[in-house]
């Protein structure tokens, strides 16, 4: 088992290295100059390029960056003076993660409930109604839904603050907007999974044994329908925890989402690298944990690792 885990860890490290290398060189291919500005004197821009080592050959810059990365130094933002990339991630990630997890928790809960109801009322009006809601959740982009919610609940009804972060009431609207797509996806997935399970022999057996409807649904149908749903949640969690540019911008949430776009627009090289490596490492770690968990749960998997995949 130890060898299996070691193997997976080495693959994860190699993946992050490849990701960092590819990002570094792709980033350098983006045209433009991070210090080009009409407000700053040309002589100053020249000195700034020297200061950040951008006057050096790309290969030198790469090895210097990798050396710093090995020491855990992701560098300083070129645009947010006085802030290191690590600081930006340390402050922004918990905000995005908190919003993402809250949104995910409620949207999965609602999505599962909708899915169960759809399956139970298959091809009847509750099924159609809830599926319509689900389709709307996918069809309505957050940039439409967000301002509408802001206007109705913030401006007209004054039930919720229009924007902001820090209190529970400020999280309600962005969590809904962020999670509506997940609700839709989970509803459809759960409905399909439930419909598959409902036709299984063991469900017929359970009913034949005299269990009532609720017991059959909760103990057998829901439980067995959840397996594919849970499998698909892994990447979803990673994605939603990293923040959303649109939702964070719309509700003024100081998360990480906006930096993914702003860093590229501003050609803030250290921030582009730092965010990509952080996101990549997070995804790889999640996958690693899943792989290791599979290894523990299924002896065939760890044995296949030992025999070189045969």
């Amino acid at each position, binding site marked *: 088992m130890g060898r299996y885990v070691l193997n997976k860890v080495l693959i994860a490290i190699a993946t992050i290295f490849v990701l960092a290398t590819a990002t570094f060189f792709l980033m350098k291919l983006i045209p433009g100059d991070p210090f080009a500005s009409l*407000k700053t004197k*040309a002589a100053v821009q020249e*000195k700034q390029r020297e200061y950040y080592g951008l006057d050096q050959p790309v290969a030198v810059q790469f090895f210097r960056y990798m050396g710093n990365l090995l020491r855990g130094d992701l560098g300083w933002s070129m645009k947010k*003076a*006085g*802030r290191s990339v690590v*600081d930006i991630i340390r*402050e922004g990630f918990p905000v995005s993660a908190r919003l993402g997890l809250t949104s995910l928790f409620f949207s999965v809960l609602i999505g599962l409930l909708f899915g169960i109801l759809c399956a139970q009322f298959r091809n009847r009006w509750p099924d159609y109604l809830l599926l319509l809601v689900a389709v709307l959740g996918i069809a309505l982009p957050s940039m439409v839904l967000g301002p509408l919610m802001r206007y109705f609940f*913030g401006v007209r009804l004054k039930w919720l603050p229009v924007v902001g972060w820090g209190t529970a009431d400020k999280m309600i609207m962005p969590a809904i907007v962020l999670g509506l797509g997940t609700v839709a996806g989970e509803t459809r997935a759960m409905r399909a999974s439930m419909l598959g399970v409902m036709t299984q022999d063991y469900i017929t057996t359970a009913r034949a044994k005299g269990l009532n409807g609720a017991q059959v649904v909760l103990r057998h149908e829901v439980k067995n329908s959840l397996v594919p749903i849970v499998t698909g949640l892994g990447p979803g969690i990673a994605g939603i925890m990293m923040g959303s540019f649109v939702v964070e911008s719309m509700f*003024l949430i100081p998360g990480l989402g906006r930096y993914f776009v702003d860093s590229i627009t501003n050609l803030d090289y250290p921030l582009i690298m730092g965010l990509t490596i952080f996101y990549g490492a997070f995804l790889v770690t999640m996958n690693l944990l899943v792989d290791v968990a599979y290894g523990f749960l299924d002896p065939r998997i760890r044995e296949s690792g030992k025999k070189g995949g045969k």
Partner: protein
Amino acid sequence: MKKLIALVLCCALCVSLVPAMAEGNVVRIAFGYDPNTLDYAMSNLDTANFITAHIAETLLTQDASGAYAPGVAESFEKSEDARVWTFKIKEGLTYQDGETPITAEDLFYAAKRLLNPDDPKDNASFSLVNSEEYYNGEAAFEDVGVKKIDEYTIEYTFINPTYESTFVTASLFAPLEQAYVEEGGEIYGSSSFLPLANGPYMVEEWLDDASVTLVRNPAYRDPETAKVDAIEITLNASADVTVDMMLAGELDIATMQNPLQLQTLVDAGFVKSEESFSSTYQGLNLRAGGRNEETGRFLSNANFRKAINTALDREALAASVMTGYTPTWRLSSPGEPAYNANPDYRAWDTTANVDLANQYLNAALEELGAAKEDIPVIQLMCYESQGAIDALAAIQDQLRVNLGLETEIAPCTIQVMISNAMSGNYDLWWGGNEVSVPDACESYLDGFRSNSGTPLRGYADAEFDALFEAAVSSATLDERLANYAKLEEYFCENAMCIILGWDAHYVVTVEGASGYYLMNGGRLNVSGMTK
């Protein structure tokens, strides 16, 4: 028990849903960006400028009437040619801690730090004698035009005559305590290491990308200046978010440009300022050298440029794709000192004059010995936003219909656009240039000189150079404005740039608000605001 818990949770939820009300005389305002830094040597975004205007007192300050009044300085003397300025600093001033004294050393250090070539600062400027030479390693700092005469006296020597408006610039003329700045090191000016305020307010809290709260500086020399208890600034708010926040009662004051958004607020009972202020000259930056020899041949011809300038219908553009802009008839916008000094001047019509435009075009073709078919496709470069592309599409249409001129729109990312501009790789470029005080010489027209040291504009016009030199060498402000009028007329009449709209902003407030005012560059000051 379960019912009790449910009741408590419901009560807690209800309490949390009640919007927080501002207590005391608090002014709430929103800006589109995080300040990024409050290091005066680095900050240049609107948000940072607003905060700096409240926390940093410079040698001179600007009062509600727009006049320059003593700030850190008690008095000053200037040489006859207005190049040497000597300031006597008030004794007994301190930073916000109430202990650290402000002396001439702090202003000397601010200059030295701003010009340090080993730690390049965005706002470094070379108006002082030998400053550029020092920056380039060709002179010692002792040769730079800043001298500490004694503990409370400092002297500046400028290359060109200088006026009072210069000394409200925080990057060079706000004091910095060396030990404190050096203690902050790399993080000085960030939310982790805030600057020591010496103005009427100080930063109480800065939550990155969320909010900044300013409170009264207890050590400020004149406590009466700060009538507002606190200023709460929301960051990263787009214009539509700002409108929603105003309507929801979460803001007290905002600056707005979009007429529809302004009307929405006015309809809801908010008060719009009578006067607008311009922050930029928006239009087509023109490179006389073109992006290549072929286009440069035509763009360097004054009649060809005038044809383009005259063929454009600025009123139609303002009514469609440039909403919020005032159609221009010259460079300086109403309200600027340079405009007020020459108020009757009109360089062009705000609508297109097709006949005149074609006359200019024919004259250009004759001068160049070319036919209309020889005119190459002129590139229109812009930032890849829909608004910019729409504006250029309308301009493209007008040039095709009114002049028979073919153009191509080239959208690109902001960094590519600026890189292309800085390296002179463009024909016409959709962009804005900041309005400044007393005129546009140093901030804008400087780049049109033959020896500007940058390929940005590509001009080589001796007459313009001479007029520019006369303007910046003027010993008094009146003389400067008179000389500037000649420079501006030459600039406009030769269509050295296609200025299309003045970016007109209005201040919108809750009903009954008063006491705010605009400083140079459209910086809002709300320290005296009541509501």
